[in-house]
């Protein structure tokens, strides 16, 4: 009786294994995935190119490591220095800029460090440090984390002390922590707009060009990893730099706000 | 039927457990046919001796030799334990189990088990019910049927009627006499003198782990060799 049960179960499981179409595995950053833009782009890419895009949602650091190990076929990240090092080490053939979005600084409504009036992101960070107001950092080597560190260095502050809390987690978890503590935090706009557990947090600083956040597409080098799907990567790259992508990216709205600005140069066929 | 299995020679057998000698030294030869009854009071070593003969006990000293060698002998004997071992199966499947081990198909094995249940008087019982629903007497009959189903040449029984009422005791004794008449060599233990008188062709009398006497039943009851044996037959309590 149990034997019959198990064998029929196995049969069901075998039949349930789906057939795979053409596929491209891409590591993308949390901020991109959380924006909801992926949900718009993926079906369109599948329809236009026949390629099913599988997204691994990780921090920039891990995305690049996945690419270096050959575990993904391409990465879509936002940390220029790291990307250039990645290419220099031969992990990718090139980087292609696709679009940018922006970071914002959010914090408690009563704003104890008075950052709302600060002229720049660096000035806002300097005020937070001076006030010793709680600040939550991703602390996870993500693109957002790297952007945060570059603002600290611009502000001339080495953040440390009880007020500076590194969570080592994704954007959502870090936002949860900040809302729980009533702390300041640097976040991408999309994650913020999608975040529903805001409690006392409000948007305080935006618009400084230092907060702009450039996304680039990097196909993993097939010379390094012969198994990567280079052809599919090229097709997706062409699509992402094309007119349909421009229309969808610039047209995407979250809670009535434009998140991404398309700035790719169309691919020249080699 | 018992051609090359016997004699069974026991030489200087000793069992020591927990630093204490519980049996022996015993030297004894079993041969021929009929029913051998190992008689003795509780704790005298009857169970230990039967289990040793059947190969269930590690010997501390001495040897047990079958005429045909250990491997052949083991395949032709069966053991009925004092407390029947119930499997988590139906009565019928418990009885059929040894045949299933031998590779007999389930259908044929169950048919044979049904016939065997009948022949040991396990009637009026739902054979498809779990074995655990059986009463004490029925459990013994089940165990007996399971032991007989491989048609062993030697059958060991350890106090098969220890906790049974008279009717059940009688039924089991009838089966044993019948099997003995068919040529099955029976070696059984009991502390019950009456049962020994009714069944035994030969008596092995144990007392405090020692072999006091091994003799034809008539001889033993006519003139027991030791005072302990005499007292046991008379039903006296040891002083």
């Amino acid at each position, binding site marked *: 009786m149990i034997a019959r049960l198990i064998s029929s179960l196995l049969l069901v*499981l075998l039949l349930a294994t789906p057939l795979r179409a053409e596929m491209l595995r891409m590591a993308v950053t949390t901020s991109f995935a959380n924006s909801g833009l992926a949900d718009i782009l993926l079906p369109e890419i599948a329809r236009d190119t026949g390629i099913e895009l599988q*997204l691994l949602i990780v921090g920039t650091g891990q995305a690049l490591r996945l690419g270096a190990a050959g575990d993904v076929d391409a990465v879509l990240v936002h940390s220029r220095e790291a990307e250039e090092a990645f290419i220099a080490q031969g992990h990718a053939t090139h980087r292609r800029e696709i679009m940018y979005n922006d970071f914002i600084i959010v914090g408690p409504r009563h704003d104890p460090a008075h950052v709302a009036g600060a002229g720049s992101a660096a000035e806002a960070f300097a005020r937070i440090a001076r006030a010793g107001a709680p600040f939550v950092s991703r602390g996870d080597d993500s693109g957002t984390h790297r952007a945060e560190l570059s603002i600290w260095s611009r502000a001339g502050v080495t953040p440390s002390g009880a007020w500076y809390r590194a969570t080592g987690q994704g954007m959502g978890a870090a936002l949860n922590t900040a809302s729980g503590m009533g702390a300041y935090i640097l976040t991408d706009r999309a994650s913020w707009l999608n975040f529903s557990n805001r409690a006392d947090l409000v948007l305080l600083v935006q618009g400084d060009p230092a907060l702009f956040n450039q996304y680039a597409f990097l196909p993993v080098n097939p010379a390094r990893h012969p198994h990567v799907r280079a052809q599919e990567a090229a097709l997706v790259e062409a699509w992402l730099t094309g007119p349909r992508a421009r229309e969808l990216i610039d047209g995407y709205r979250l809670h009535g706000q434009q998140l991404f600005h398309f700035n790719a140069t169309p691919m020249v066929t080699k | 039927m018992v051609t090359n299995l016997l004699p069974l020679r026991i030489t200087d057998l000793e069992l020591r457990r927990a630093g204490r000698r519980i049996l022996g030294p015993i030297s004894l030869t079993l041969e021929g046919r009929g029913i051998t009854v190992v008689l003795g009071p509780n704790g005298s070593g009857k169970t230990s001796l039967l289990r040793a003969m059947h190969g269930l006990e590690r010997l501390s000293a001495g040897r047990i030799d079958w005429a045909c060698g250990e491997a052949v002998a083991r395949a032709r004997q069966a053991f009925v334990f004092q407390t029947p071992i119930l499997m988590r*199966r139906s009565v019928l499947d418990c009885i059929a189990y040894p045949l299933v081990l031998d590779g007999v198909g389930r259908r044929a094995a169950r048919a044979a088990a049904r016939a065997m249940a009948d022949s040991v008087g396990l009637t009026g019982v739902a054979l498809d019910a779990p074995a655990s629903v059986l009463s004490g007497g029925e459990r013994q009959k089940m165990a007996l049927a399971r032991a007989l189903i491989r048609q062993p040449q030697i059958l060991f029984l350890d106090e098969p009627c220890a906790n049974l009422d008279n009717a059940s005791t009688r039924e089991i004794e009838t089966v044993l006499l019948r099997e003995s008449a068919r040529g099955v060599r029976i070696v059984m233990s009991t502390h019950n003198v009456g049962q020994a008188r009714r069944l035994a062709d030969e008596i092995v009398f144990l007392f405090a782990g020692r072999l006091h006497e091994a003799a034809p039943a008539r001889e033993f009851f006519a003139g027991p060799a030791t005072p302990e044996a005499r007292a046991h037959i008379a039903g006296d309590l040891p002083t």
Partner: protein
Amino acid sequence: MNDIVSGLTQAVRLIATLDANLVEISLRSLQVTLSATVIASALGLPLGAWLAVSRFRLRRVVIATLNALMGLPPVVVGLIVYVMLSRSGPLGVLGLLFTPTAMIIAQVIIITPIIASIAHQAIRELWADYHDLLISLHTTRAQRVATLLWDSRRALLTASLAGFGRAIGEVGAIMIVGGNIDHATRVLTTAIALETAKGDFAMALALGFVLIGLALAINLALHVLSGTERGSRW
């Protein structure tokens, strides 16, 4: 409290409308976990039985190892499987990382010790009961293992279900080796982690309730199908 209520309502709504996403990730949860449970049972149950009937020098070491493995943090298992299956790892050529197969492998490693250990306990007790009978009937080692497995099948069902319960609620390891890819390796637990990360506690709770319901339904179904309640005297 508010989140719990809205989580419950959302769960009801998702189930009532047979939300396509919910159905997909629930089915994948079942596929991965049931496969892992079947494989881990096929390995763990005979291992437990074999450990019960065998006497060899390293037996205690093996049993101690099993018990230690039961407490192994799933994240560690996930990391090890990840490193093995990564393209730059020893089994990279198989291309299994970020597939349901990788998740099944991780879960098998996590629950096999649990299933083997519980099976070992149950079978050891039965072996104590059956020992004399099975020796007397001069059974082979394989026959003993087979008999003990069959006759303790209800206890073994419990062992397998314990493994199933551990696997279906597991998130750390399968997040690492599966990658939580939408439409490919996303299952209930990783979806819950994702919704929690997004701060959508109501959705996360809704999925959590579905997970609990699913685990309950599977347990009940298996118990009914195997007639555990009927054969209570066995």
